[in-house]
């Protein structure tokens, strides 16, 4: 996909000009986390403790990959539903996360919180697990190994495409996108 090239970890300045509906191509390292891992981080941050990894300036990808084929870092690795993570988002944003990536819309409250904090939301294409799995060139568990596919991994990605769904200019693709095509 042609689009804006973004190096990970993200430089906040690079996020200023990207707009909803635009493709970005991610290259570098990101962290994965989903339901159970986020619940644990939420509990730690709420108690005033440090998360197991430094989340400053990081992008969190909501994913639980399938087991890798021999010689591969991961199997299929597409996004999971983001709104399930909403109860835990304030905690990871407090810990310094600047962007999250998953699939599907987020609530109005979350959208407002992201815009207040200057956090962007990237929507990867749900159900494209094989496509995304092949964009991952390295994977290492960095926390909560016992959670299996729900553990926190550091993933090395290359030219990993996603669409900007919440930008820093007040845009929300999941609202404005459908509005443009509604014919009810």
């Amino acid at each position, binding site marked *: *996909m042609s689009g804006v090239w973004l190096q990970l970890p993200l430089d906040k300045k690079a996020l200023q000009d990207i707009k909803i*509906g635009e*493709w970005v191509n991610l290259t570098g390292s990101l962290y994965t986390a989903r339901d*159970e891992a986020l619940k644990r981080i939420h509990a730690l941050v709420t108690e005033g403790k440090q998360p197991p990894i430094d989340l400053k300036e990081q992008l969190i990808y909501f*994913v*639980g*990959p*399938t*087991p*890798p*084929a021999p010689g*591969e870092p991961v*199997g*299929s*690795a*597409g996004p*999971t*539903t983001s*709104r399930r993570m909403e109860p835990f988002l304030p905690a990871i944003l407090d810990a310094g996360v600047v962007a999250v990536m998953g*699939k*599907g*819309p987020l609530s109005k409250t979350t959208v407002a919180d992201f815009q207040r904090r200057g956090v962007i939301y990237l*929507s990867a*294409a*749900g*159900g*494209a*697990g*094989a*496509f995304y*799995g*092949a964009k991952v060139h390295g994977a290492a568990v960095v926390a909560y190994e016992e959670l*299996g*596919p729900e553990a926190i991994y550091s993933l090395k990605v290359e030219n990993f*495409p996603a*669409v900007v*769904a919440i930008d820093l200019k007040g845009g929300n*693709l*999941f609202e*404005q*996108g*459908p*509005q*443009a*095509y*509604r*014919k*009810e």
Partner: protein
Amino acid sequence: MRKIHVREIQTAIVNAIKNIHYHIRPDLKAALQQAGETEASPLGRQAIKLLLENAKMAAAGVHPLCQDTGMTILFVEMGQEVNVIGGDLEAALQAGVRQATEEGRLRHSISVHPFKRVNTGDNTPAVVHYQIVPGKGCKIYVMAKGGGSENASVSAMLLPSAGDTGVQDFVVNAVRENGAASCPPLILGIGVGGSFDTAPWLAKKALLRPIGQASSDVETAELEKIILEKINTLGVGPQGWGGSTTALSVAIETAPCHIVSMPVAVNFECHSHRLAEVKL
């Protein structure tokens, strides 16, 4: 009596499960290709192109189509003149799921208990629906059902006076509310009638129909068409990014029901529709 050994059933299940996670169904591929041409939004067309590219890559056998390899749902239609030999049928089916999960490198996505979120570690148990049918055949539908779309599914007890427009509104509202989060373009199975428990079962059964195949009942087929058209005016579009293709197909199954009831259920299925029909 025709004899079928459980080993034969297990092998067939293993092969079907491994296959559906790496190879897109031809009817689904055709529906996506068509949507790729008719979709109004450029971003929507790009999303569909990416999904077709995804299917091409999965076929190499390294990465499954989707990382949510789902809960396995089996619909067993067993002829009453069949004698299953060599062991326990249910155990053979579950063993097949376990073996396919290992050999197909599928994700472990099943919790032992809804409150204690401990993983079973092998994707069992599959949900199995049995039907005894006339004859000597044995047909098993094998479906891998993703959790995201399953979460969007809903059922309700409507009043009979709501009629078919009540069903239309119920389904369209459900898609308006939850469509974007369940990996559109969607495939929708709708069940109407029976008792409280029948409607969701019918809704899932409706998903077994090939994509785009209309109901054999003329009035039901007309209702399927109307609902599909209405859903595609919502603007949700592929991935929820906006567009004219929110659903690829709508299939409705009905059953007789009580004079005071109209149970209705809609089972959401994502575009990653992994389904096979095994005949023994």
